[in-house]
Each structure stands twice: as structure tokens, then as C-alpha cells.
């Protein structure tokens, strides 16, 4: 099913999503990948505030290529989510509602997804040029020294993603692979 959804995210709307749905996100999402997650973890360990509020928000695992003059952003597709698994349950428990990336998640992340009514979505890996067209604004809000790994705030319009793990914990990677597996 095709679903339009607003970011930040409404918990009730997220509950309606089922794995396999194609969603088009409009609104504000944040960008963070490996090094930014590590720093957020260190901040939490020291009881410091995070650069953004997790509550109801979404994080896109991405590190863009540089923008050409006059453009909002460069190529901007998803990176592998499992590298963030170690840090993710803690952020989910703080209210993070949506993660957008590509690839499998750990059992711990899945549990935290179900526990918190969150959703994991995949953007199409390797489609960074296409996906950049759904980003209307981009601003670095923290950890600027990390370059492409800095935390950004994005405005997106009809950003396409596919629901992979829904609020019940069902996993499209497992389900769809089973469906198309053949004996040879």
C-alpha cells in the first residue's frame, strides 16, 4: 500500500503501517550515521543533552556527497543500518520513532522497535541521486567537524521509503525473501 506520512511522526499513524508498505515522508527528519551515533552515545553517558530531541522524530542513516553551488545537497542515499545497531535501542527508548537506512537489524533493535512502537524503513540503496530530489532543505545542526558524518536536519517532500520492520516486529527482509526463494 502507498501511504503519505508526516514527520515528526504520530505514534497512531505508525501503528497502521505494515511491512511492505511504500511510504512517502514529508516534513522534518534528522541525519546521523556512525560517528554521530558514537558521539550521541558519549553525550548520553555524560548526561549531556542530545543535539536534537528524539521524541517522535526520525533518523536517516546517510552521509551525503557535497552539494554543488546552488543545490541543497549532493547524492543522498541510505547507508547500512546494522552499524548503528549498538547505539539504537537507547535512542528508541528515548522516543526515536523512525529509522531510515538499508539492511538487516539486530534482535535487540527489533525488540526495542516493538517495545516503543517504532518503525524501520529502507530507502533504496544506491539511489542517492534520485533520493536527493526529495530533499528540499538541509542544515548541519551538530558535530560539523565530522564532515559528511555531521548531524543534519532535513526538510523532505514525498521522500520514498519501504516499511521493513513495522511496530509488531514483522521483518520484510525475512518475509519477502521466503516468498521468492526457489529450489534449484
Amino acid at each position: 500500500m502507498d501511504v503519505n506520512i508526516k514527520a515528526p511522526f504520530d505514534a497512531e499513524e505508525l501503528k497502521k503501517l505494515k511491512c511492505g508498505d511504500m511510504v512517502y515522508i514529508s516534513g522534518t527528519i534528522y541525519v546521523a550515521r556512525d560517528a554521530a551515533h558514537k558521539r550521541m552515545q558519549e553525550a548520553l553517558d555524560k548526561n549531556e543533552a542530545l543535539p536534537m530531541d528524539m521524541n517522535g522524530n526520525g533518523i536517516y542513516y546517510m552521509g551525503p556527497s557535497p552539494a554543488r553551488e546552488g543545490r541543497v545537497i549532493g547524492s543522498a542515499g541510505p547507508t547500512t543500518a546494522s552499524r548503528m545497531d549498538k547505539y539504537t535501542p537507547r535512542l528508541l527508548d528515548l522516543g526515536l520513532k523512525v529509522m531510515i537506512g538499508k539492511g538487516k537489524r539486530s534482535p535487540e533493535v527489533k525488540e526495542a522497535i516493538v517495545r516503543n512502537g517504532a518503525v524501520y524503513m529502507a530507502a533504496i540503496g544506491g539511489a542517492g541521486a534520485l533520493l536527493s530530489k526529495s530533499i528540499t532543505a538541509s542544515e548541519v545542526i551538530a558535530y560539523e567537524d565530522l564532515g559528511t558524518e555531521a548531524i543534519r536536519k532535513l526538510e523532505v517532500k514525498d521522500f520514498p521509503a519501504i516499511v521493513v520492520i513495522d511496530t509488531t516486529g514483522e521483518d520484510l527482509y525475512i518475509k519477502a525473501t521466503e516468498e521468492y526463494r526457489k529450489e534449484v
Partner: protein
Amino acid sequence: MKEINVAQISEAIKDMCIETNHFLSADMRAALDRAEKEEESPLGRQILSKLKDNLQIAGEDHIPICQDTGMAVVFAEIGQEVHVTGGWIEDAINEGVRQGYTEGYLRKSVVSDPIVRKNTGDNTPAVIHYFMVPGDKIKLTFAPKGFGSENMSRVFMLKPADGVEGIKNAVLTAVKDAGPNACPPMVVGVGIGGTFEKCALLAKKALTRAADERAADHFIREMEEELQRKINASGIGPGGLGGTTTAFAVNIETYATHIAGLPVGVNICCHVNRHAVRIL
């Protein structure tokens, strides 16, 4: 003795950085077209169609195909009758990478030290493999490598008794473990034989072969085709979201090995399998 100035080398590398990150070679585009027609999953077809749109946007608007514009890998085949003038070839290659990644608005994804992890800011250094060959030319093959798929690559030190079945299982294991992480449809580079490092290098080299070019050896060719059929029957599909297109190609390279060993390297590449060649 033919003289080649380092400036020519830098220029060729710089061009290839920009070219490969914005345009895929014809074989990769053809593989995508074919897959879109043959894919059985509706979502899979939708993804493949979006990947084609992505290629078009990348070329027309000059946006890198993928934001991970890779670590620069260079195969430098140097004719032994060539005299390189004006500097050191390694500096020249890195200068080309520096200029290409900076002027081409490509992402700088390289850290100077694997532990300290400070970004070098210009995507250098490249990983360079030199080969001395007969003749008076330099052949440069440029293949930037993204790490979503690189991270899923493996070396298996099989034993002779593991045989052909062992090789096939190794490749299928690597591909299944990679699954959605490697941005399928993939190209699978396989190196069989040599030593620990040689099989990995063969696997990397195999990725620079065209997706529609099968191995010359009949037996190896059949193994490539069989493995591709088996991988496509795994159900992983485009984006790992289910389907019948998981690999565009399996490219196998082989080399002599030791009586006690059967090394197998599996280098996985995503659908953004970038490679270009310049001969100087």
C-alpha cells in the same frame, strides 16, 4: 623506452573518478534493463525502475549515482618499456584522486588511520595494485569501491577436499549473509586459487570485468552461470526486499595454487559497480 609524464597519469585518474561516479558502463546499464523485464516481484520491478531513474538523474544533473563514491582502487599495469617522468607514479595517482574527488563534488570517505579515524579530506590515499607487463603502455583501471558491499566480502581458506562444492557453498554463504546490506542486485567477484591475498585480489579484479562477459574457460563459465542461477533463486531480490534478481553476474578468476590449499575470495559489489579504463 617510451616516456609518460606523471601529469598524464593524474589527468586520467581524475577523469575516471568523475566519470565512474556519474555514469555506469554499458554492460551494467544493460543488466539493469534486462532485470527490469525479468523480475517477478512487483516491488522488485519498482525498485529496478527507480534505479534506472537514478542513473538518468545522475548523468543529466551531475549528481553522483550513489553518495558513497567509494575508496579509490587502481590497477596499474605498467609496460616494462615505459619510463615514468616528472615524479613518482604513486603521487600522481593520488593527485588524480585528490583533484577528481574535490573538483567532482564526490564524497571524501577515507580516514588516514583505521584506529584514529581522521578523515583525510580529499579521499586519498588510493589502494593501488601495480603489475609489470610487457610493452610500452600504461593501462589504468579505476574502480571506486563502496563499503556497504565491501564489508560483506570474505576470504575462505578451503582445503582441496572441499572441492567444487565447497567453492559454491562459500560463494552462496557470502551472498546470503550480505543480503540487503550490499545493495542488491549485486555483481559477485570470485577469486579461486593463489594464496590468501592473491584470491582476494583476483576477486577484486573480477569485478572490473564486464557483467555480460563470461569466463573463457568452459568449466569456469558454467560455474559462473550456475552460481548466478542459485543466487537469483535465493529470494533476496532488488534491495533485499524479495525477488528473482539478486546478482547481475558472477565473475570468477582463477590462479595456480598450493597442493594443500584452495583459497576462495568473494568480493561483493552492489549494482553501482563502477569501473573505467584508460590506456596511456
